[in-house]
């Protein structure tokens, strides 16, 4: 594998994992615009554990994942009191606090960044991405995932059906946090360097875009979204000019007009599902009153 493709696959793997961390909350109807903050906790957690404390690599990952999950769990209770635009802003503010702390703490390298000694090559990244993808697909197929998707569509009715909305959302935040922590740890160890400036609001915006452009209705969404977002700018780069971001922005706008629910919708998955090819014919659309 050439260095160029190894680099792209590494970024793609981290993006896929990162996108799934945000997806797990979005699938239950909660928008998180603070992804970079959660990823930063994982990255700095392992950087501090392995490089400063000299702990082994596995301990670094364990610390990164549990620390991020724990912080997510704690922040979930206040943040989930908020709704819609307020939640978007609350998570955004949280990420700003995290990057501010990273900038201000000398032990975390401050504005100079921090070198991470243990290196993780590209293969473990790819396997982690496959593993996380499988995990999220399983989660969405479970009864718990059914409750998440129901909350995404209609929180009131889900609650009346007996779904404990708050518990499901806190669990989603915690699971999402753990996955974000993993993506941060992989980033830190693959690039062997962390700096606060990387975990910017723009990163949070982009990872939320992976999820929303991909589609929040099925677990395919973030996978397709992050592949789209990682590869399209690369292909545009082959054209060789800074026009690529202009084209890319225009593509985003067009996507929202043409497919506002994301590239992959539930209906699309149902249409493409092999088990459906042999299923009963759908009932004829009879003339009936709409609402």
């Amino acid at each position, binding site marked *: 594998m050439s260095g160029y493709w190894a680099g792209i696959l590494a970024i793609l793997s981290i993006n896929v994992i990162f996108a799934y961390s945000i997806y797990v909350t979005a699938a239950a109807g909660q928008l998180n615009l603070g992804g970079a903050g959660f990823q930063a906790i994982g990255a700095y957690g392992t950087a501090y554990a392995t490089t400063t404390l000299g702990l082994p690599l596995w301990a670094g990952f364990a610390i990164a994942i549990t620390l991020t999950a724990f912080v997510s769990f704690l922040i979930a209770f206040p943040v989930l009191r908020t709704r819609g635009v307020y939640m978007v802003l609350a998570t955004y503010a949280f990420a700003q606090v995290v990057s501010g702390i990273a900038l201000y703490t000398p032990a975390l390298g401050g504005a100079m960044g921090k070198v991470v000694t243990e290196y993780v090559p590209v293969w473990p990244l790819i396997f982690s991405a496959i593993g996380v993808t499988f995990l999220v697909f399983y989660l969405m*197929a*479970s009864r718990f995932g*059914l409750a998440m*998707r129901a909350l995404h569509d209609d929180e009131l009715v889900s609650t*009346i059906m007996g779904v404990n909305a708050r518990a499901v959302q806190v669990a989603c935040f915690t699971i999402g946090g753990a996955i974000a922590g993993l993506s941060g740890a992989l980033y830190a160890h693959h690039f062997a360097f962390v700096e606060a400036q990387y975990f910017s609001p723009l990163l949070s915006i982009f990872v939320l875009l992976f999820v929303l452009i991909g589609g929040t209705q099925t677990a395919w969404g973030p996978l397709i979204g992050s592949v789209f977002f990682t590869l399209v700018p690369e292909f545009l780069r082959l054209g060789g000019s800074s026009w690529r971001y202009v084209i890319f922005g225009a593509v985003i706008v067009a996507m929202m007009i043409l497919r506002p629910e994301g590239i992959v919708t539930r*209906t699309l998955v*149902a249409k493409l599902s092999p088990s459906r090819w042999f299923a009963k014919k*759908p009932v004829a659309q009879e003339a*009936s009153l709409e609402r």
Partner: protein
Amino acid sequence: MSAEAILSLRGVSKAFGGLKVIDDVSFDIPKGERFGLIGPNGAGKTTVFNLISGVYPIDAGQVVLEGNDISTLPSRKRIRNGLSRSFQNIRLMPHLSVAENVMLGQHSQALGLLDLMTPVGWLPRQRFRREADAALARAGLDIDPGEVVSNLPYGIRKKIEVVRALMSKPRVLMLDEPAAGLNPRETADLAAFLKTVSDQGVTLLVVEHDMSFVKNLCERVVVLNFGSKIFEGTLAGAQADPAVREAYLGTRRVA
């Protein structure tokens, strides 16, 4: 308070922003009865449903289910006590398939960690899925359970909502205008289906504007007007009652 009442409202009141929408409403529904809640538009029928199912807290009074005061019970716990409902405008989850919507109705029956972790989406012959398919068949819905519900016609979606409400094995089933928008054949089918449900011992509480449907199905009715109970008894009695006639006058004649 009759001893066999399964659901009782005792002096229930509710105001929104100073406007009293439900004023001191009381009634008892005997176990196993098919009970109708009727009244002109804006009488507060759907609000009564929302108060019973816990969408809003009540301001005064009590909601009693099988002898237990559930007035302060969170809405998600009421379904576990045997109280299930449908909605006036179809409130199926638009991005879920038929089977998934119906399985959501089982949620209150599947709260163990093992149940929650069961990948129902991957196991088409798993117990939950079999129960859902069987319930759809019992309701006479011959449709592909994998179809996304938003692609289905109105009458079918309306019926799926009733099936979903039945999946929690309710003892009291509340239906908010189940026949609205159905053609006469579908309405008759629905009434027949609800009678078989009732025969299995499920108490029915139905809000409905279609009086022939109410006449066909309900044994007793309560009439609401401007948030107050103005009549309780048989539908024939309601149609003869002067207060009820006055309430409907100008809006709709009692059929």
